[in-house]
């Protein structure tokens, strides 16, 4: 499960997304045209599914969401070092939480992938630690602290796309160290061993990767 050699950021799932899309007609709008619109729509299909779950307890939408995300969540947990059985169980739990908390999902604030990621992240931490992770904000319905300011409101539409573009602009080595360290929770020493690099190189590569990502996303 620690074999990371196969991972890359080529959009190998686009076919699957298109297949899912063809089954999904509920919220389709007449295309205004333009690649940007189509791309955003593709990303937003899963958001629309969560909204349908919230509004209509739509089990078909849930099944579609499950078939796309559950295997990814399981893969994500296993890359973080979790055993297959536990990853399977926690992936089911994550999807169940998505169903139950769907009403808290606000498509204006976050993409479906971001929201589901935070659900999975919180459950993983809650399992490992005795205390709940303090980062619950995307899930909380009445949280005056996190009412987005106007600039934060703009974040989603432009910025999620900009973030995707930024990640794709990183070198494969940079994406790899970010993924290993931050998302798979591997310490520097283990990354050094995995990639057969000196410890100092790992640290500086990581620092530069975060800096580059930061400047690609922009300061605003």
């Amino acid at each position, binding site marked *: 499960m620690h074999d990371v050699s196969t991972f890359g*950021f080529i*959009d190998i799932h686009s076919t699957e997304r298109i297949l899912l899309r063809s089954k999904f007609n509920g919220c389709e709008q007449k295309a205004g045209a333009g690649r940007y619109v189509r791309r955003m729509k593709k990303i937003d299909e899963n958001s629309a599914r969560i909204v349908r779950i919230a509004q209509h307890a739509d089990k078909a939408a849930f099944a579609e969401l*499950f078939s796309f995300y559950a*295997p990814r969540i399981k893969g994500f947990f296993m*890359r973080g070092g979790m055993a297959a059985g536990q990853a399977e169980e926690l992936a089911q739990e994550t999807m169940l939480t998505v*169903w139950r908390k769907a009403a808290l999902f606000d498509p204006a604030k976050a993409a479906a992938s971001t929201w589901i990621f935070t659900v999975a992240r919180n459950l993983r931490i809650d399992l490992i630690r*005795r205390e709940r992770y303090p980062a619950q904000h995307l899930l909380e319905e009445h949280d005056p602290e996190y009412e987005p300011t106007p600039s934060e409101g703009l974040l989603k539409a432009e910025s999620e796309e900009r973030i995707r573009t930024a990640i794709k602009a990183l070198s494969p080595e940079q994406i790899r160290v970010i993924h290993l360290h*931050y*998302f798979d929770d591997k310490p520097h020493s283990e990354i050094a061993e995995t990639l057969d690099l000196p410890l100092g190189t790992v640290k500086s590569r990581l620092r530069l990767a975060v*800096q580059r990502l930061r400047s690609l996303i922009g300061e605003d």
Partner: protein
Amino acid sequence: MNNRPSDEILMAFASGTLSQGPAVVVAAHLALCSESRARVRQYEAVGGFMLDDSPTVTMSADSLEKVLGRLDISSAAPVRDKGKWLAEMPDGLTLPDPLQHYDIGKWKFLAPGVQWSSVGKGGPSRSRPMLLRSKPGMVLPEHTHAGTEYTLVLKGSLHDELGDYGVGDLIIADASLEHEPRAGPDEECICLAVVDGRLRMKSLIGRIVQPLMGF
């Protein structure tokens, strides 16, 4: 406000790999800082992208059926209780929302003019956050770090060799820094602090207090 955590720390917070104590302090900082909050959102979006592009691992054949079977069972959604607070807070101080759910212990003596109280009760005590309350102009006990110290100003101000810090500022001092922050002269100062790693107090009072605090 000008003192914010590095992007590496915000990325660790967003990905869920920052350890619990520092995560509580960073969460409290986020409640006070829209810039850091926006960046954490962006890094959570990075997480969403990573998830979308995660290699898939086949779920067991009956997994969807199992979950579908549980959808209609109403969940006793755990309501997060408000924490039990034994320390009184001065008028005009509202603790940031992420702290509302943690128990807060009584104020205890730490050094002349300085009190501390524990935040939460889970996890090892040495990495548990604490509130520090200092009279105007008092120096927080001198210590060196074996780990990284996170200090968030909640009321008043702090001043050290490197700068002045106001409400919402998060000071992160690593092991190499001899750090001796002093509360501003006009107002008492309340901070939320945690040490990620073992703290060694240098002064005599530190050596006495250290065992009591569980460091």
